[in-house]
């Protein structure tokens, strides 16, 4: 590890010496432009859920918000159960998830359960498809505007769903944002497996969650900003039986603590941003029926620093460094697991003309006990108001999870990192100022050393192995067409996504044929949405479809879902806000995971008051 630390220091010192020389030669020729935002790559960061929706109180979790927006496929085990995102045919663990630029998914499983992620404190939820193998799902809590703002409200819904949230933000030099949230649900929805079987009701599915989040933003001086983010939540949820099991008494308790301290220096020549983060998750899974108790926990300390500087008016350079130490404990580990890693990144963005950008990015990660992993990304794009395009070629990696490395039996310390080579092309054409646009996105990605738990003839039992390759390719077409007829306005949106993601190397056990589509990855999905706005009333209908997919035990049928929403929304986001929504309007009986029933028709309604005292 010592050599990596030396390397890191050298990286930073040399990188900045070189940069300083460049700055010295260019300072007199051109004005240095300094931004106080992070370096944005050429590729689009797509906003998945608007801030307004995040704060609307409609969503119990991020999983629900992402499902509602329909741009990502969310794989869920049922209402209130584990949910992960499937991004363009990638495995869930290949999509990195960051909160204010800090990776927060569990290093043990590589996952973050989106069904437990509250949204009230988040201001941005989006994705950059060209970062990490399966993209980077980013969550951001931004500095609030000045002036006191209070949000208070509650939501009730079918199957005992209840949410109470309260948020307050404001301040001037010291700005704050504080929120609390209480979620409760019985989730005892009825379901009918087929017309010949009597209706059943989900059991052992109750959920209770308490969340407390606080962010402080302190402007020490014109040059120095401090941010402190605290996130604490406790969840207790029961784990329902499958549809082919009589009952379940299993439950899981999750306690999550996330803290970040960020120091931002706005220099004359550059912006420095240093973060210290501590992540802690304690999970207690128990199934009294089978006398099983499985506690597990991890702690991560992350020190991350970025330096961003402009050279002249057209070039921006960013150097980043992240050191992370994780310790983890689980019944399946022989002893407390520890993993130290060091990440180095360097980006250069050059603007050739007013709208034409080119960027190159290189990254390396040194992980204790692993081979060094390298990645790079090069992008080019033109961004005009009426037309834009972006082309990206990128290589990324994903290191094995701690469970892949350490779990006994089957963990393999010799596992290599997965690596991918991908290309993407995005084209957008806009035709009016209200936001009418059509977008076409094409992507292609090959992942080598795909990690799969498998059984091989030369090794007894199951073990994690770099056993196959996966080729993902697809297209996404999206149309947004706003309209206005007198006092009636609205928006028509439609989205279609084709994803072909196939194993390229056959595996005997599990049974995988070459050319077979990945499990739980529908080839076709899309939605059509019509929103009508009359003064402060908004009515919308969304119809989405998902094609059939293959599961581990059975194939899953495709399905259509309808959703209708009625909202009373005051102007300028103040005053009383009321909504009523009906999900699964047509009472479709469907499943996303086999043997895991999903709820039929369900409603929710909520009240929010937004006060500017």
């Amino acid at each position, binding site marked *: 590890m010592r050599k990596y630390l030396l390397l890191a220091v050298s990286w930073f010192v040399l990188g900045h010496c070189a940069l300083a020389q460049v700055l010295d030669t260019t300072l007199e020729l051109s004005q240095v432009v300094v931004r106080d935002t992070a370096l944005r790559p050429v590729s689009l960061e797509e906003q998945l859920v608007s801030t307004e929706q995040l704060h609307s109180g409609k969503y119990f979790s991020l999983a629900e918000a992402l499902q509602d927006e329909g741009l990502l496929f969310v794989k869920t085990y049922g209402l209130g159960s584990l949910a992960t995102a499937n991004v363009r045919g990638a495995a869930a663990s290949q999509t990195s998830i960051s909160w204010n630029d800090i990776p927060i998914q569990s290093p043990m499983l590589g996952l973050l359960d989106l069904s437990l992620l509250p949204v009230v404190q988040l201001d941005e939820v989006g994705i950059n498809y060209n970062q990490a193998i399966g993209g980077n799902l980013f969550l951001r809590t931004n500095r609030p505007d000045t002036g006191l703002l209070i949000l208070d409200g509650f939501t009730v819904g079918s199957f005992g769903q209840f949410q109470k949230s309260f948020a307050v933000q404001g301040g001037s030099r010291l700005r704050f944002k504080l929120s609390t949230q209480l979620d409760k649900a019985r989730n005892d929805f009825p379901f009918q*497996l*087929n017309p*010949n*079987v009597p209706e059943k009701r989900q059991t052992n599915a109750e959920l209770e969650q308490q969340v407390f989040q606080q962010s402080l933003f302190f402007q020490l001086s014109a040059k120095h900003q401090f941010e402190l983010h605290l996130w604490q939540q406790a969840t207790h949820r029961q784990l329902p*039986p*499958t*549809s*082919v*099991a*009589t*009952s*379940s008494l*299993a439950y899981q308790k999750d306690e999550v603590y996330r803290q970040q301290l960020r120091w931002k220096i706005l220099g004359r020549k550059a912006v420095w941003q240093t973060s210290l983060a501590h992540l802690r998750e304690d999970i207690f899974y128990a*199934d009294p*029926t*089978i*006398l*099983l108790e499985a506690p597990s926990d991890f702690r991560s300390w992350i020190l991350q620093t970025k330096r961003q500087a402009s050279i002249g008016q057209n070039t921006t350079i960013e150097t980043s460094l992240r050191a992370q130490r994780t310790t983890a404990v689980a019944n399946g580990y*022989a002893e407390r697991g520890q993993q130290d890693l060091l990440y180095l990144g360097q980006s250069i963005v050059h603007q050739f003309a007013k709208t034409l950008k080119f960027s190159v990015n290189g990254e390396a990660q040194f992980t204790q006990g692993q081979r060094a992993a390298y990645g790079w990304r090069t992008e080019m794009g033109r961004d005009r108001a009426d037309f834009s395009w972006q082309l990206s070629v990128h290589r990324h990696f994903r290191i094995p999870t701690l469970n892949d490395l350490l779990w*006994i*039996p089957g963990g393999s310390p010799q596992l290599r990192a997965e690596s991918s080579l991908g290309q993407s092309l995005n084209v957008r054409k806009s035709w009016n100022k209200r936001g009418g646009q059509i977008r076409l996105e094409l992507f292609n990605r090959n992942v080598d050393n795909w990690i799969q738990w498998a*059984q091989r003839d030369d090794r*007894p*039992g199951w073990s994690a192995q770099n056993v196959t390759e996966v080729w993902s390719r697809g297209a996404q077409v999206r149309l947004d067409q706003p309209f206005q007829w007198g006092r009636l306005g609205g928006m028509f949106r439609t989205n279609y996504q084709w994803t072909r993601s196939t194993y390229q190397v056959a595996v005997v*056990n*599990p*049974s*995988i044929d070459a050319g077979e589509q990945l*499990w739980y990855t529908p080839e076709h999905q899309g939605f059509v949405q019509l929103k009508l706005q009359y003064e402060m009333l908004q009515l919308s209908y969304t119809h989405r479809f998902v094609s059939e997919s293959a599961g*581990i*035990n059975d194939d899953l049928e495709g399905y259509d879902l309808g959703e209708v929403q009625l909202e009373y929304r005051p102007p300028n986001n103040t005053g009383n806000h009321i909504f009523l929504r009906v999900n699964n309007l047509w009472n479709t009986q469907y499943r996303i995971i086999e*043997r895991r029933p999903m709820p039929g028709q369900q409603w929710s309604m909520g009240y929010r008051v937004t006060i500017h005292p």
Partner: protein
Amino acid sequence: MKNNLLLLFLLSSVLLTAQVTVDFEEFNLMEGQFLNQAANDTFSTGNVALFNDYNENYDSWSGWAISATTDTETPGFMNQYSSSSGAGFDGSSTYGVTFAFSPVPIELTGEAVGEPVTGMYVNNGTYAYLSMRDGDTVAKKFGGEDGNDPDFFLLTIKGELNGEITDSVEFYLADYRFEDNSQDYIITEWSYIDLLPLGNVDRILLSLSSSDVGQFGMNTPAYVCVDNIITAGTPTSVVDQRVDYGFKVFPNPSTNFIQLDWAADANAQAAIFQMDGRMIGQYELQNGTNTISVRNLPMGSYILRVEGEEGWDVRRFIKQ
């Protein structure tokens, strides 16, 4: 008629051959105990050898285990050694358990090699039985969501002689394929399987298959319990016989060490087992007084098993 007489003659000659019944009782396990770790990777008893692979690092086993556990109520993996009747055949205390995700052999030894195996008793384990009856997080409840799925749990026994398959016998440990669901069943009592149709064999192979199969293979827990394997011949492995070596273990209870006066046999091994059957130490015995440190053992009861050239013997001791 001549053919029938010939068949009767052949059958009689088979039955008249001396038989050895492997009933596992000689392992002398107490109620609730199991052995999942064989001294030399093999449980040798009667005229059969049962392969066992215990992985100390993973605390896992494959092949065969010997069990006297009696839990018929607790579902799940933690109760993987119990038979669904809570005992061996005919209420006996001890029986064999195999994990047969892949085919598992019973090797014949001594005079049984190349002779027919008359038969044996089988039963579901509690883990598999309750999983099929109620379902669990991995496996389905037999009959499925509407009770009509034609599920089955099938034990296939193949005979092998000189590497060639002689024949096979099938036995349904659970069968839900009946038109009339009231006839569906899961075996919970010891059932006899006639293995004479396999002919002369030097080993038999047990494999399990189920209708509940996913991409990761069979979901139904791949366990089956076996008792009273009836082979030809007389016992050849004297090590498999309990003999009274007349040794004492002292002090008992003990704190730091135990002593064992050994005079009976020049070549002997001792092994200490926890009460759950897990072996925690092996020792070569010398003539005279042998001292074994138990300082690092947690307090509790232990079994000391001695294997000499004439057979084996056990003593129980307590660590204070």
